[in-house]
């Protein structure tokens, strides 16, 4: 699903091609490029992780992802921004998410890249299930995430 010719937000069903991802950020006016990769770690909160799976609600994830990139472009002096998030089964060390930003100067690239990954982690309708070495599995919550879209009262 990744389109190496255009910037934007995608969901990928198979391994992200880091080389193609990086190349789409090339731009003669850009002196700085910052790329963030979030990878499947072999541990989380003290437990040995074997693999994981992401489930996304694709229509809204794509819309929210595109919105986050647009916000970053408005807030920071950047010329390109792209991000891709995996869905489905992932093995250890595979990239779950890759964010890339190109800009004339490095300040904006660092700030925008950080903004995008933080917003992706808080806002994208996507859920992670970790499979552990002891045979159990669990849906993982983003513990720091106060629900930014839960306007009004919540039950329960």
């Amino acid at each position, binding site marked *: 699903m990744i389109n190496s010719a255009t910037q934007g937000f995608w969901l990928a069903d198979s391994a992200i091609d880091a080389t193609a991802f990086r190349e789409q950020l090339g731009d003669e006016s850009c002196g700085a490029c910052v790329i963030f990769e*979030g990878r499947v770690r072999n541990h989380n909160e003290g437990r040995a992780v074997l693999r994981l799976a*992401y*489930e996304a*609600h694709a*229509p*809204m994830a794509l819309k929210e992802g595109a919105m986050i990139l647009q916000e970053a472009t408005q807030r920071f002096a950047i010329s390109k921004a792209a991000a891709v*998030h995996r869905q489905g089964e992932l093995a250890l060390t595979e990239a*779950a*998410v890759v964010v890339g930003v190109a800009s004339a100067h490095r300040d904006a690239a660092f700030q925008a890249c950080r903004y995008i*990954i933080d917003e*992706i*982690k*808080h*806002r*994208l*309708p*996507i*859920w*992670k*299930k970790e499979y552990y070495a002891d045979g159990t599995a669990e*849906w*993982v*919550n*983003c513990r720091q*995430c106060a*629900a930014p*879209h*839960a*306007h*009004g*009262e*919540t*039950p*329960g």
Partner: protein
Amino acid sequence: MAIPVKVIEIKWFAAYREAAGVATETARTDAATAAELFVEMQRKHPALASFSAALLAINDEMADWNRTLQDGDEVLFFPPVAGG
């Protein structure tokens, strides 16, 4: 005054789907809001009782828990997200 019964499509995601045992279901309900509908569904699916509600969308737009449900709405219940 009798409240007319609404037909609501429900979609469950991730941990909610596993607790509910289904990915989608159709509710015939007189719940006024999504919050009331969630509590009603917690009674129907006891495994959901241990979950507090997080985010929801109505017709693929993020929505308030207090928004009035309309007949024919599609309600998506989202557990806390965990991207990246």
